[in-house]
């Protein structure tokens, strides 16, 4: 099928397949899935600028479907998501400025690439360690619960920060927390997302759980709710710059809608620690993809 906006010919079933895979991951883990869709689209012959913009566009649509499904399941804290969006959008803009500054120094690919790999490996190792510990706790202590977090020190310390204004987040089971902490988490995710060129889902999800103390299922749903707005904002800015092929995004979205529904429903079949254990593989895959890209760009001697 010809896509007149990008001027490339791609089998729509391939795009639907990418959409489905990314939708499934998004619905289950609350991530955008750009780290997987991007390389596959590029491999299929989509120009790089269109890869970034089109990916964001289809991510917006997919997240609407998945977030709505999670909302039905009671997994979305709308108040938390709305507050975090503010911090995220400011953070994305700061991240974009960091990119501009790094461009002037040169060697941007390696600086960002290595930073990205380090962050992804830390997230992957930490989440795997914590979730295995939590699963063992459930087994040894014979706990009949779906949610146990083995690392709660940080979220407990964060709750002791009492900088006005304090907000309550009943949807996440948080009685009182400083608004600045919530905005800070959004800002940090936004900076990382903006400077690393990713949606930030697999950075935000662990931060919601380990820093704010949000239950895993709610973290997944709220993350998706937040992605609707942050990816929607990204779609608009990229579309104005001519980086979005909406026809391609619409085709991908049809596959993503099915995957997102299935992924969201599947969360109901797994306990929080197990979802986190599966999740820990994602950043590892992301890190491997970046390592491959960096190696392939190295000059041969």
């Amino acid at each position, binding site marked *: 099928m010809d896509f*007149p906006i990008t001027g490339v010919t791609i089998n729509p079933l391939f795009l639907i397949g990418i959409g489905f895979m990314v939708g499934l991951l998004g619905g289950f883990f609350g991530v955008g899935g750009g780290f997987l869709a991007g390389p596959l689209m590029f491999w299929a012959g989509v120009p790089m600028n269109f890869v970034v913009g089109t990916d964001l566009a289809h991510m917006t649509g997919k997240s*609407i479907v998945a977030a709505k499904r999670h909302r039905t399941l009671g997994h979305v804290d709308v108040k938390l998501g709305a507050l975090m969006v503010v911090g995220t959008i400011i953070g994305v803009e700061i991240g974009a400025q960091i990119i501009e500054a790094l461009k002037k120094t040169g060697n941007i690919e390696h600086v960002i690439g290595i930073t990205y790999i380090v962050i992804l490996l830390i997230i992957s190792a930490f989440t795997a360690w914590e979730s295995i510990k939590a699963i063992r706790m459930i087994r040894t202590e014979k706990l009949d619960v779906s949610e146990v977090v083995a690392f709660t020190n940080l979220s407990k310390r964060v709750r002791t920060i009492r900088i006005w204004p304090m907000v309550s987040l009943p949807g996440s089971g948080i009685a009182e927390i400083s608004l600045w902490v919530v905005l800070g988490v959004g800002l940090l995710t936004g900076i990382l997302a903006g400077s690393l060129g990713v949606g930030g889902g697999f950075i935000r999800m662990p931060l919601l759980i380990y820093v704010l103390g949000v239950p895993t299922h709610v973290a997944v749903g709220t993350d998706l709710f937040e992605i609707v707005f942050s990816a929607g904002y990204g779609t608009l800015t990229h579309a104005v710059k*001519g980086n*979005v092929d909406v026809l391609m*995004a619409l085709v991908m979205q*049809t596959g993503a*809608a*099915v995957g997102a529904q299935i992924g969201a429903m599947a969360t109901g*079949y797994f306990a929080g620690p197990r979802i986190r254990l599966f999740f820990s593989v994602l950043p590892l895959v992301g890190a491997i993809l970046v390592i491959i890209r960096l190696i392939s760009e190295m000059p041969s001697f």
Partner: protein
Amino acid sequence: MQTKYKILLRNFLVELLVYAILLVIYFWVVLNALGQPLSQLFHLNPIVYAIATLLLIVVQGVFLEWVTSFLISRLGLEKME
């Protein structure tokens, strides 16, 4: 295979089948009709194109969510979640 996984698989297959039929209709009707006008808009007016992009994505997202929810309730799949 445990019952809950069988249910998950059944939900997936039913949705996949219905979506396959809808997709064929979608490709022939929607994309053929929208392709040329959107391509022209992309080259002539980026701001209107950006707004149209976001609107189409949101409308399709809401529509697909509605279709899936409708299917789930009509086929009685929600009772098995």
